[in-house]
């Protein structure tokens, strides 16, 4: 048969060798050059050398392409003929894209809210317990799993068999045990979107747990003690002490997750490939630009994603500026 042949794989290792040698040479030259730099106070030239590789790569790999994408979004599928705002008009009038936009909205709302809430509750519940480290690790584990891997794990949980007696998917088996009928969870809209979103929540909760747990531990003991002396109950403690104290961390977690949900691609690609009414903007962008050769439409969707994160960028830059001035 067509068995795997190690000889066929050799060129790959050669390529890897070339890559590593290139790395050593480039970094070696850089280190040599910075070693020969003039004295400490002549900072300008030194800065140029230190920033050159990263700066060059960012220019070629991000800044120029991003500008080019904006331009392309006003051109046709092959990038040859200018079409004005046609691609954007298409985006907001096409029925199937309307659904894509609605789905993305659902992702951006549900994932941060549910994952953060679950992560926060879990972090509080396991705080200062004997098994805290283990409990945290268990929920954090999905962070190390690829979205593709997570997609397969959950596709297996959702697996459906029309003959309800032998289900291999855990969810359908539970439903059957409870006396219900097995469902093809990933096929029936609009609920299938929720079943995809659950997977993302499953991945992201650990992130919320770890960040918020660190933040909870940083709450000064005196505040908690003072509140306890005032006789607050657990509920009041949560809303009046814990939540206000960890507000900055909460904002960071929510923002990070919103961005992740907005750009989400892999899960949808692996689990449904965007069929059955589950596509999201990032998946549709890929389909248009690289599967259907509609560069203009794909670019317009990328620009749309960018516009959606712009407020976050502005907010972040402002926060960063104030923080730097405080120093």
């Amino acid at each position, binding site marked *: 048969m*067509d068995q*795997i042949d190690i000889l066929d*794989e050799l060129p790959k290792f050669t*390529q*890897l060798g070339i890559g*590593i040698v290139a*790395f050593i040479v480039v970094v070696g030259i850089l280190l040599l050059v910075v070693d020969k730099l003039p*004295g400490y106070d002549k*900072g300008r030239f030194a*800065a140029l050398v*230190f*920033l050159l590789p*990263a700066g060059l790569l*960012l220019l070629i*790999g*991000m800044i*120029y392409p*991003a500008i*080019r994408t904006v331009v*392309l979004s006003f051109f046709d599928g092959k990038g040859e003929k200018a079409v004005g705002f046609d691609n954007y008009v298409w985006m907001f009038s096409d029925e199937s894209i309307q659904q894509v936009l609605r789905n993305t909205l659902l992702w951006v709302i549900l994932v941060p809210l549910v994952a953060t809430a679950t992560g926060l509750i*879990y972090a509080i*519940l396991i705080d200062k*317990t*004997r098994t805290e480290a283990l*409990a945290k690790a*268990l929920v*954090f*584990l999905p962070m*190390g*799993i*690829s*979205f*593709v*891997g997570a997609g397969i*794990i959950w*596709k*297996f*949980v959702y697996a459906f068999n029309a003959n309800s007696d032998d*289900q*291999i998917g*855990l969810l359908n088996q539970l439903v059957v045990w409870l006396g219900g009928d097995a469902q093809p969870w990933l096929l029936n809209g609009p609920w299938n979107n929720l079943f995809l979103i659950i997977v993302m929540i499953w991945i992201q909760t650990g*992130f919320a747990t770890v*960040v918020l747990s660190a933040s909870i531990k940083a709450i000064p003991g005196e505040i908690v003690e003072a509140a306890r002396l005032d006789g607050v109950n657990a509920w009041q403690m949560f809303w009046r002490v814990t939540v206000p104290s960890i507000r*900055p961390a909460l904002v*960071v977690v929510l923002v990070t997750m919103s961005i992740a949900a907005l750009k989400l*691609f*892999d899960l949808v*690609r692996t689990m449904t490939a965007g069929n059955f009414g589950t596509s999201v903007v*990032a998946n549709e*962008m*890929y389909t248009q*630009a*690289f599967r259907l050769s509609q560069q203009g439409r794909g*670019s317009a969707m*990328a620009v749309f*994603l*960018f516009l959606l*994160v712009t407020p976050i*960028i502005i907010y*972040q830059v402002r926060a960063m500026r104030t923080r730097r001035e405080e120093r």
Partner: protein
Amino acid sequence: MTTLTPMAGKPAAKGGKPESRRTKAKKRLTSRTASVIALIIAILWTTPTFGLLLSSFRPAEDIKTSGWWTFFANPSFTFDNYAEVLLSDSSAGRLGSYFINSLVITIPSVLFPVAFAAFAAYALSWIRFKGRDTLFIGIFALQVVPLQMALVPLLSFFSSNFALEDEGKFIQIWFAHTCFALPFAVFLLHNFMSELPGDVIEAARVDGANHGTIFRKVVLPLITPALASLTIFQFLWVWNDLLVALVFGSGQDTSPMTVRLAELAGSRGEEWQRLTAGAFISIVVPLIVFLSLQRYFVRGLLAGSVKG
């Protein structure tokens, strides 16, 4: 796992007023409820992965006809799925070949951005020059720019200028990963570097060291933990990536495991014996890295997110 209830039998705080029996009972009840909820979350979060792992060791016929939970009543165990999916012909997956691709993609895609970001972060934190803050904020803002913005033009940049073939396509994958990683990498390392004590740098300067020497002999050794966190981040990101690999790689020559698995999940959605074993192979490498170096990962996560 059942020992999640250490708070339950704990005596009332020393020195505080003695608690009445009722509040004690109430406390015990709430902490027990809390433990149960925590336990439920923990079980919900681990069962899906466990089910996949267990299934990957069951014979193909069993996986297709019965749920993995029946394993406990009727255990049967095999490594066939792994042998098949790793080594056999291409229709069964031949993940071995894609596993090598993942390695070849990941190693340079981690080395380059970590090194370049270290250089850039040094300049942004310890060299005084005009426009430094603006430059830093610019790079910081790039973090949030969706990489979708760069895909189409960057791909045509490569295909029209270099026309890389076969294994050569690794170069464009490395390049793309390196560029996309830089904003976060620079930001993270800058966070660590700028918090180094100024007098250490100052002492080296008084000794006549230039920036190159300070970077190599003073700063790099001090930020090794930060380099470790960044390396783990980048490793996980590249190994687990699907989008960049789909756009810049192609076929069995350069596509990593994620691409192959996504294909298998789509076209052969019912071949669970291959999918479960395949998914586990792709999961296990990052999981080992992740679990053994979790400390660094968490540290990086906190530095990169809470401060940012």
